């Protein structure tokens, strides 16, 4: 009985279909307000709240479109991809792919990648803390064994490639951005690395890396051995500065640990 009440009520609030809305009204004592009006209050609260969550996680998408567009899209989204957790920080992961298929966003082909960047930022912000790399421990490994090492990336590390200049789009849409808002639409692939800053441990950093560097880190993230990750990078750019990039990745806190296969 209780389960049926909850099922009908939830479907009614979300207006999952026309008959669902009517069925919900039958559960409710009307009184001085109609059952339909009472359901509408819950519908408004639910949609406003979830839309607000998306606005908080995706402020750049909101700045690119406008409030009415965002509101409309988010209502469609809530019904197509319902929240599946009581923790709202988990809500919105499907928003980028939803935007990719949202007809009214067809004129904004970069919107999905911008949203993916914002979701990556959100995930990086809440990711686990981790100790920084122990260089002294690495010094105990003979150089000839380095190629067989596997490296671990910081839990906040996220990687995105796009055909659009999404970092520039992200930057000019920040509230504190000053200066020329022109975006140059070059067509080369943009490879982005998102992670938390090693200094304060909490700020999220987004930076461009070379395609070779991206391939290198991507391979490390899949637990490839150092020599295989290097091969992937050299396959893209024969002049890839392996040592320099590796050092920078350690110093910036992206690479945090290593393991070696036991012979």
């Amino acid at each position, binding site marked *: *009985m*209780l*389960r049926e*009440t*909850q*099922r009908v*009520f*939830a479907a009614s*609030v*979300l207006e999952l279909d026309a008959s669902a809305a009517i069925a919900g009204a*039958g*559960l*409710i*004592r009307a*009184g*001085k*307000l109609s*059952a339909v*009006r*009472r*359901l509408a*209050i*819950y519908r408004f*609260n*639910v949609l406003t*709240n*979830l839309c607000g*969550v998306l606005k908080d996680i995706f402020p750049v998408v909101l700045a690119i479109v406008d409030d009415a567009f965002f509101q409309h899209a988010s209502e469609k989204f809530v019904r197509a991809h*319902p*929240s*599946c*957790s*009581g*923790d*709202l*920080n988990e*809500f919105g992961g499907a928003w980028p792919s939803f935007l990719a298929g949202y007809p009214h966003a067809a004129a904004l082909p970069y919107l999905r990648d911008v949203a993916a960047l914002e979701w990556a930022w959100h995930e*990086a*912000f*809440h*990711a*686990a*803390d*981790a100790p920084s790399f122990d260089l002294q421990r690495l010094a105990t490994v003979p150089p000839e064994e380095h190629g067989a090492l596997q490296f671990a990336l910081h*839990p*906040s590390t996220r990687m995105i490639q796009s055909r659009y200049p999404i970092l520039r789009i992200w930057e000019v849409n920040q509230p504190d951005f000053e200066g020329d808002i022109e975006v140059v639409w070059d067509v080369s692939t943009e490879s982005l690395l998102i992670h*938390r800053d090693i200094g304060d*441990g*909490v700020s999220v950093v987004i930076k461009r890396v070379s395609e070779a560097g991206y391939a290198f880190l991507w391979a490390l993230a899949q637990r490839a051995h150092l020599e295989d990750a290097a091969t992937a990078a050299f396959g893209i750019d024969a002049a890839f500065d392996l040592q320099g990039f590796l050092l920078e990745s350690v110093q910036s806190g992206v690479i945090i640990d290593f393991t070696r296969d036991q012979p």
Partner: protein
Amino acid sequence: MASETAVLSRLAGIGLRPPHYRAILDAMPKVSFLEVHSENFFGDGGQPLKYLTRFREDYPISTHGVGLSLGSTDPLSPAHLKKLKRLVDLIEPILVSEHLCWVGVNGRFLNDLLPLPYTAESLDHVVARVNEVQDFLKRPILVENVSSYLEFADSTIPEWEFVREVARRTGCKILLDVNNIHVNAVNHDFDALTYLDSIALGSVGEIHLGGFQDAGDILIDTHGTAVCDAVWKLYQHALQRFGNLPTLIEWDTDIPTLPVLLDEAQKANQLLASNELRCGHAA
């Protein structure tokens, strides 16, 4: 515990929200505790937990859940419970509370505090769920009465009896939201004093005060304004009936500057002080 609660009951606490983090660290205002929404600290690490552990050094923390869905007929989420326990173990809150409501069903969450039909079936269900949570956390929780904009046709038990019975049968304390009682009294046409006077002495562990919005034909619980006079009067009545209790000012939307929030807390402090005088030191 008794003496800790007495200290907490001398001054009001405030809801801790990100726009005030900096101002609170700078001013270190005299509030007896800070209350957070538990789920905002369910992440694995990063800034939210860093701030919370920093605040924990100077203030008792109360964790207040909005997403556990105590009243849902879906099984309790093991992942949600584990994250709650992780937070409780880390922060060691003075109070751990949830809402007497459901927030989703069939794996689909509306993430709103949805009312229950007040029936014998619902009561048995909620009692079992509160017990499950208390067993899992290995500590008692508080359960808060929610605002509602409808009553279910099949409800057979007055809300105040339902709340009272949940506490009696589980040993949980009631987080009495006096604003929610006022909102529901107006929306559902009952006497708020009847509600307060039906709640058993000794069963309330905390009081919430907040603001609502008058939509003309119904009151909506927004936590977006100052506490209204009628709610302050109910609060006084509650203090006279239950004695001084940890009291929280909640302000979650249209969040004002910290001094405005602290002014509200100061009003509660005055009522707590005069109630203590009235009761003498017997309490």
